[in-house]
């Protein structure tokens, strides 16, 4: 038996032990700057920025920075709530606004956090990639002097020759998909390079994801439009009710498609606790992919958008558009159209406005409440009790005077500016009914009801890149977390009496289990006895 030599800390062993906790190319802890020159200071700052500690800090900052956006209303999702919040909180509201707290995710400070994180990431991953590339092409490291100090060790004596032992080890390790290097008196092997590769791929894929998101933000467009049954939509900016485009998008070059909404149908839950909950929406449309293309029919549903080129059309809502005809005091038709009303509750109590600027002797305006299934609540007034048009009614109040359309200021089609008007009448109507307006102002007829579809139309050229990158990222992550990275060495030495001592040492990432089993399996592949007939001069290996 040999006695282990005293534990001496050679630099080689130190390196090994340092590595034993990671077996990866992760950056080492940062030392304080050496010297006072600007260069060394900069280099120190850069190393600080790309250190693991900074990455951790920035990850926390990112998580923290994302929180206020969920607690406060955001401009992008709920602009009306933002205005409301600011007006209710006075100075605090204005302060929050100045701090970009109502558009956190496009705020300079949020951008600062994630950009710093990504600079750190790139600064970290590029050198690691270089190191890993070198490791991939180099041989497994030579056996450390003291195999007995590795986390997993085995040793035994054998009557087989070192040659036999090392040959067997070589074969066994190869079979276990190790990369094996044969040195004098020992075998070194390593496997699991894919772990590091996966980790680097994961981090790089995050950079690509950011690029995809950025492309969408810069070149994407999205907007919304209301399309009434029987009418059409052409994909030009003027046809949108609201439209936003990234700074580099060209709104003049949208995909040149158009479609007509032939029919909209909806079904609802009847009775029970969820009475009135929607069950299905279907929009039948006829689409032309370009002005010259042949029209095709398609069904548009929630979760089943219409796809034309790079643009998608989503069904996001619906509502009712009462069809009315207004005749003025001189008997001329001054308005005849379907007027989209906006739903105010889940039962589709809806409100809308009809404007007849051409009416004589004075301009006319109507504020309306539409009820698909009408009832009168003693406290809240006219209220719908079911979202389907089972018993529709239209409540109108009539205003006369100046609609204020000539001032040049933009006016919402859903609001009546009554500052220069007076109210002169109120009426409840059923489909088909007419109301003779007071003071000889004319008549209004409730001709019927159509439904409309609220559509969201979006085009995001970065989407594919984003999806591709997350798929790659997940694959990289799986490799990074589950591929075991291991090193194993086998050494065979003869002592003074000619006994062959075999030592096996294994090293793994601390987290990954299974190294013991692997080493044991290797051990059982090594011969305890010389193969019959084999005789080697042992001296050679001393």
């Amino acid at each position, binding site marked *: 038996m040999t006695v282990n030599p005293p534990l001496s800390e050679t630099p080689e062993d130190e390196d090994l032990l340092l590595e034993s906790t990671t077996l990866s190319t992760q950056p080492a802890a940062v030392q304080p700057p050496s010297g006072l020159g600007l260069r060394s200071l900069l280099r120190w700052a850069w190393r600080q920025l790309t250190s*693991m500690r900074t990455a951790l800090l920035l990850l926390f900052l990112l998580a923290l920075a994302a929180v206020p956006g969920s607690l406060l209303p955001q401009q992008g999702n709920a602009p009306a709530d933002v205005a409301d919040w600011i007006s209710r909180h006075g100075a605090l509201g204005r302060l929050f606004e100045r701090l970009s707290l109502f558009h956190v995710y496009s705020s300079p400070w949020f951008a600062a956090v994630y950009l710093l994180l990504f600079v750190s990431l790139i600064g970290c991953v590029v050198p690691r990639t270089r190191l890993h590339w070198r490791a991939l092409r180099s041989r497994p490291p030579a056996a450390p002097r003291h195999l007995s100090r590795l986390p997993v060790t085995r040793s035994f004596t054998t009557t087989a020759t070192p040659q036999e032992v090392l040959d067997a080890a070589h074969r066994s390790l190869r079979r276990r998909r190790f990369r094996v290097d044969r040195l004098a008196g020992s075998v070194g092997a390593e496997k699991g390079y894919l772990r590091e590769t996966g980790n680097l791929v994961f981090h790089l894929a995050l950079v690509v994801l950011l690029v995809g998101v950025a492309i969408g933000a810069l070149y994407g467009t999205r907007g919304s439009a209301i399309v009434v049954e029987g009418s059409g939509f052409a994909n030009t900016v003027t046809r949108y009710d609201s439209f936003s485009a990234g700074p580099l998008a060209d709104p003049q070059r949208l995909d040149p498609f158009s479609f007509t909404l032939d029919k909209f149908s909806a079904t609802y839950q009847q009775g029970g606790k969820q009475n009135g909950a929607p069950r299905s929406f279907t929009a039948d449309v006829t689409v032309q992919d370009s002005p010259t293309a042949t029209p095709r029919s398609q069904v548009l549903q929630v979760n089943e958008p219409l796809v034309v080129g790079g643009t998608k059309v989503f069904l996001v809502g619906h509502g009712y558009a009462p069809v009315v005809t207004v005749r003025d005091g001189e008997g001329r038709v001054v308005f005849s159209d379907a007027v989209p009303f906006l739903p105010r509750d889940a039962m589709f109590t809806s409100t809308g406005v009809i404007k007849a600027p051409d009416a004589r002797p004075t301009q006319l305006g109507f504020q309306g409440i539409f009820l698909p299934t009408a009832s009168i609540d003693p406290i809240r007034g006219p209220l719908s009790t079911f979202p389907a048009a089972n018993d529709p009614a239209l409540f109108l109040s009539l205003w006369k005077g100046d609609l204020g359309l000539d001032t040049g200021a933009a006016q919402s089609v859903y609001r009546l500016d009554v500052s220069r008007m007076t109210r002169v009448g109120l009426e409840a109507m059923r489909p088909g009914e007419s109301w003779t307006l007071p003071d000889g102002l004319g008549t209004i007829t409730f001709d019927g009801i159509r439904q409309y579809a609220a559509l969201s139309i979006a085009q*995001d050229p970065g989407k594919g890149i984003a999806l591709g990158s997350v798929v790659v990222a997940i694959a990289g992550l799986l490799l990074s977390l589950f591929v075991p990275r291991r090193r194993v060495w086998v050494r065979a030495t003869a002592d003074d009496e000619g006994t062959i001592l075999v030592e096996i040492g294994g090293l793994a990432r601390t987290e990954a289990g299974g190294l013991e089993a692997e080493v044991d399996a290797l051990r059982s592949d090594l011969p305890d006895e010389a193969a019959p007939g084999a005789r080697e001069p042992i001296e050679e290996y001393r």
Partner: protein
Amino acid sequence: MTAHTFAHLSNDLVYSAMATLTLALLAFSAELAFGDRGRVARTSRRTVHRVPVAVGAGGAPVDVDTPDVAELPEGDLPESTRAAKLGGIGFSLTVLSFVLLLAAVVFRGLAAGRAPWGNMYEFSLASALVVTGAYVIAVWRRPVLRLLGVFIVVPVLLTLGLAVTVLYVDAGPLVPALKSYWLVIHVAAAIISGGIFTLGGAVTVLYLLQERWERRGLSNSLSRRLPESEQLDRTAYRLFAFVFPLWTFAIVAGAIWAENAWGRYWGWDPKETWAFVTWVVFAGYLHARATAGWKGRRAAMIALLGLSAFIFNYFGVNIFFTGLHSYGGLPNK
């Protein structure tokens, strides 16, 4: 049988599961509370075998033929103690609860004619099922984890209690926005992630306790039966490392669904925001474990922070915020 009977059956099964879980909780608590007494009683009955052995700083005499758990091969409990018997009863009741919950979820699905995780009530039910199931599997693989019982049963009971009182809605079809197989995939992945996050959180709490006891040289009925802190730490890491890619996938599946339903894959809706926060915090946890000075206790605290974000996303966001995701099926405020 009609959908209606299925729905009723499902509800009854949920209540039965809650009853058996309550009993399991009693058994588990008794195991922890009376652990020492059981041991002392046994010890005094066999004074012959008693020898004083210094244990930690306390130096209390221990029964020599009750082996110290820390020295056992992983996963063996001294089944002979009365406390352990209580624990065994608790575990059997938990297995029974799991079966009842499984049946409840299946019948709920049959009643609604779709995947049974379409609203907050069903989501809670399914989560309770997954947490219980993950615990049962964990104990089956490593019996020593049975000691997690209390930490598992309490959150499960709370979830179910909230489900049947506040979140309950009748079984029925979904609103159109939720009819998407990406949603089914997304929610299923989120539920499974939730189960494993919870289990990992429970192991982490035990790790923190055990680590503290070890550091101070304290010993008590729980610490003696738990594995060493290092092993608990490793188990927690394995759970979190397993769940992190799954959670990543859940978020991605959700984004694909959102893209299909609303035309944008990410909109910083409160639900999305908190999913992101959870993800980033757990990425931080994985980093912390590889960062000098952050391993061990600090990393464990980060994991608990991540778990809190997850739980807040689950309960808080559904109940307090309105967003595109508030599909809880709760009446609109």
